[in-house]
C-alpha cells in the first residue's frame, strides 16, 4: 500500500519537476536568443502554451462536439440536423428551454437587484463588516451543499405528521393548514430553486457593487447634493450611471453561472417535476442515456446561448479601455 502511494507521489513530483525543467529550458533558450529573432521567440514562448492549451481544452472539443451533434447516439450514423429537430420538437425539451430562459432572466436580475439594495442599506449600518460577512457567507458554500440545506427547508410531510421542513412548519404556524408539497408544485418549484441561486450569489453581487459605490469620487456626489439632488434622484442620476459597468459585469457573471446551472437541479429534483435545465439535460443525455448526438446538440445550444453574453462583456471591456 505504502509502496504504491510513494510511487504515485514520486510520479507526481517527477512530473512537476519535469514540467518546470522544460519551462526553464525554454526560458533559457529565449533569453539566449538575440536580435530580431528574440522578440518573435518571446511571443511564441509566452503565447504558445496558452494557445496550445486553449486548442486542446476548448477549440478542438468544441469542434468535435458540433461534429458529434450531427450523428446518432453512438456516432455511427449521420443524422444531419436530426438531433436539433428532436430538441425543438420534443415537449420535454421545450420545458427545458423554457426553464433555462426563465432562469437566465429572473435569477441574475433578482440577484443583482437584491445585491444593490443590500449594498446601499448595509453601507449605512454600523458594524457593516459583520453584516457583509454574514450575507457573503453562503458564497463559500458549494451549490450542492446549499441545495442539501434547502432540501430540508422545502421538505414535505403530511400536515398531520411532525414536520421536518422549515417552510411547511412556518406556513402551519401562520395558520395555513395545507401547505403544498413545495418541490412538486410546478411552476412554483422553479422559483423555489432560483432562491437557492440567489441566496448563494447575492453576497457576491453586494460586495462588488458596494465597492463600486464606495469608489464614486466624493466631489461628484457633493456637487450633485449642492445642486439639490437627494435620495432617489441622487441614486438614479448619479450612483447608477457611475456604477453602470460594474452592474453589467455582475449581471453577466451571474447570468453565465446560471447558464451553467447543474448542481442545484441535480441535487434538488434530478430534473424531475418540470424543473429540468439545459446543462443538466445535456449531462443526462450523455452519461445516463449514452446519447452523444443529443447531448452534443444540447451543448451546442448552450454554447450559442453563452456566446452573445461573452461577446457583450468583451465589447464593454473594449469600450472602457477606449475611454481610458
Amino acid at each position, binding site marked *: 500500500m505504502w509502496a*504504491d502511494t510513494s*510511487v504515485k507521489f*514520486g*510520479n507526481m513530483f*517527477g*512530473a512537476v*519537476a*519535469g514540467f*518546470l*525543467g*522544460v519551462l*526553464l*529550458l525554454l526560458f*533559457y533558450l529565449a*533569453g*539566449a536568443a538575440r536580435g530580431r529573432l528574440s522578440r518573435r521567440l518571446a511571443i511564441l514562448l509566452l503565447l504558445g502554451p496558452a494557445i496550445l492549451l486553449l486548442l486542446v481544452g476548448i477549440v478542438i472539443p468544441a469542434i468535435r462536439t458540433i461534429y458529434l451533434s450531427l450523428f446518432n*447516439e*453512438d456516432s455511427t450514423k449521420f443524422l444531419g440536423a436530426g438531433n436539433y429537430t428532436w430538441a425543438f420538437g420534443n415537449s*420535454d425539451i421545450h420545458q427545458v428551454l423554457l426553464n433555462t430562459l426563465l432562469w437566465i432572466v429572473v435569477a441574475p436580475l433578482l440577484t443583482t437587484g437584491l445585491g444593490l439594495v443590500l449594498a446601499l442599506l448595509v453601507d449605512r449600518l454600523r458594524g457593516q463588516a459583520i453584516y457583509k460577512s454574514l450575507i457573503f457567507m453562503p458564497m463559500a458554500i458549494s451549490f450542492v451543499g446549499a441545495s442539501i440545506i434547502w432540501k430540508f427547508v422545502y421538505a*414535505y*410531510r*403530511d400536515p398531520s*405528521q411532525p414536520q421536518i421542513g422549515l417552510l411547511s412548519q412556518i406556513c402551519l404556524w401562520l395558520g395555513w393548514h395545507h401547505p403544498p*408539497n413545495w*418541490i*412538486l408544485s*410546478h411552476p412554483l418549484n422553479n422559483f423555489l430553486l432560483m432562491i437557492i441561486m440567489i441566496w448563494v450569489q447575492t453576497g457576491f453581487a453586494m460586495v462588488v457593487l458596494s465597492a463600486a459605490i464606495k469608489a464614486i469620487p466624493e466631489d461628484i456626489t457633493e456637487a450633485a447634493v449642492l445642486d439639490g439632488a437627494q435620495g432617489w434622484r441622487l441614486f438614479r442620476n448619479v450612483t447608477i450611471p457611475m456604477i453602470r459597468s460594474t452592474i453589467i459585469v455582475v449581471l453577466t457573471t451571474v447570468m453565465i453561472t446560471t447558464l451553467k446551472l447543474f448542481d442545484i437541479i*441535480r*441535487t434538488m*429534483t*434530478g*430534473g*424531475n*417535476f418540470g424543473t429540468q435545465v439545459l446543462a443538466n439535460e445535456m449531462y*443526462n443525455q450523455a*452519461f*445516463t*442515456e*449514452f*446519447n452523444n448526438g443529443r447531448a452534443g446538440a444540447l451543448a451546442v445550444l448552450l454554447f450559442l446561448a453563452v456566446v452573445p453574453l461573452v461577446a457583450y462583456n468583451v465589447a464593454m471591456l473594449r469600450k472602457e479601455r477606449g475611454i481610458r
Partner: protein
Amino acid sequence: MHRPTLSGRRAVAVGAAAALTLLAGCSNSSGGNGGTASATPTLTGDCAPFQAYAGHSGTTVTMFASILSPESDALERSWAKFSSCTGIKISYVGSNDFESQLPVRVTGGNAPDLAIIPQPGLLAQMVKTGKVVKPPAQTVANESKWAPIWKSYGSVDGTFYAAPMSANMKSLVWYSPKAFAAAGYQVPTTWADLMALSDKIAKSGKNKPWCGGIGSGTATGWPATDWVEEVVLGKYGGDVYDQWISHQVKFSDPQIIDSMNVVQNWMHNPAWVNGGFGDVSSIASTTFQDAGTPILTGKCSMLQQASFYEAQWPKGTTVGPNGDIWAFKLPAVNPSIPTPVEGGGEFVAAFSSRPEVQAVQNYLSTSEWATSRIKQAPGWVSANQGVDPSIYTDPIDQLSAKYLTDPSATFRFDASDLMVAAIGSGQEWKSFTAWFAQNQSVQKTAADIDAAWPQ
C-alpha cells in the same frame, strides 16, 4: 526583467536536464511481466485448494466496480486468502460514478482488467465496444451451478461474456410482525389476500396500508419501475416480460397497460398510500431510503422493496420473523405463474485475457469464493446453487437465497436494467415519476415511453 549571470544560467540548464531525466525515469509503468515463471509451484497446506490458480505470483489484476466501503471491505477480505496463496494481487477500485466512468475508461483505452457490472444493459454496451474478452473455459464450466437464465443475463446476443457474482431479491414486502400480530392480520400468500388485507387496513382507519418512495436523486423513479415489473412478471409471466424488455411488447400493449392499472389501483390508490408522508404525489418526493420508516411508528403497514432495503432500517431494529421488521414474498398476481421472483445482480466482465486475470475470473465464478464472501459479512447473497444455504447468518439473506436458488421459480432480472439505457435509465424513470408526481394518466405515461424508444 533581471538577467541572470552566466553561472546562474548554467545552473538552471543543469537543473532542467536533471529534471527531464527524472521524468523519463518515472514514465515506466508499475506492474507487468513478473508472471513468466517456467514451472507452476505446488501449493500445500491450507493453500492447496488454490492450486488451480497457481503460477502467476507477483502479478496484479485491476478491478473496477460500483461497490463502496464497507461492502467492498468484505469483498477484499473474501479473496485475501486467494491473493496470499497465489501471489496474485487484486487492486480494487470502487466508484459511485461507476456507470458513467466505465464507458469513459473503456473507450479511452484505460479499461480495468475486470469490471463488476450491475446492469446487463451496460454489459451489452461494453461488448459493443469490442473490448470485452470472452471468459476462460473453467468460468464457463462453473456456470452449471446457476439457473440457465443467469447465464443468459451474462450473455450478449447469445454469446456468454460475464459470470454472475452476487444476487439480490426484489419481490419482497416489508412489514412489522409485531404490528400484524397486535392487529390480528395474517401474512397474505395470494395476491387476492394481499389486496383484501390492504382494504381491511385502510377501512380500519388507523393507518394507511402502504407507504412508498421513489426519490433517488438522478435515478428517481426506479422503485416505481420495480412495481410495474413485479406485476407484469406475476400476471403475464416470463415470456411477455422478456418481449416487453426487447419492445416486441410495447408499453401501450394492453397487457402492460393492464399491469400499470394494477399498480394504479395499488400504489396509486389515495385510500391506501402514502402512510406517514401525505397523498399519492408524496411518493415522488419521498426518497426510497426514507419510505419504510413509518412502518416502525405504525403510520403504515407495508412497503414493497428489495432485499437490500434491510440496510436502511435504523440501528437497533431487529429483523426477523418475530422481530420489529420482517418481509414476506410478494405473491403472484396470477396464481398460475410459478413463484415469480424479480431480482438484480452483478456480473464480472474481463477486458484482458492475461492468465492471472483469467485465474481471478475463474476463482470468482466458483461456489468456494461465494462461500468465502458470505462468511465475511451479511447482506450478500449468491444465486450459485452450489452454496450451502445453511451458511447464511442473516434471516433476509436466507429468505432471498431460498427464492433465488429455487430451480422451479420464474426468475427474471430487473427489466429496466435490461432495457436500452435511453428507456431503462431515462424515459421510463422520468415518465413513471410524472405518473406519481403529476397524476399523469397510465395511457400518456405508456405512450411517452414508447415514443422515446430509440429507432
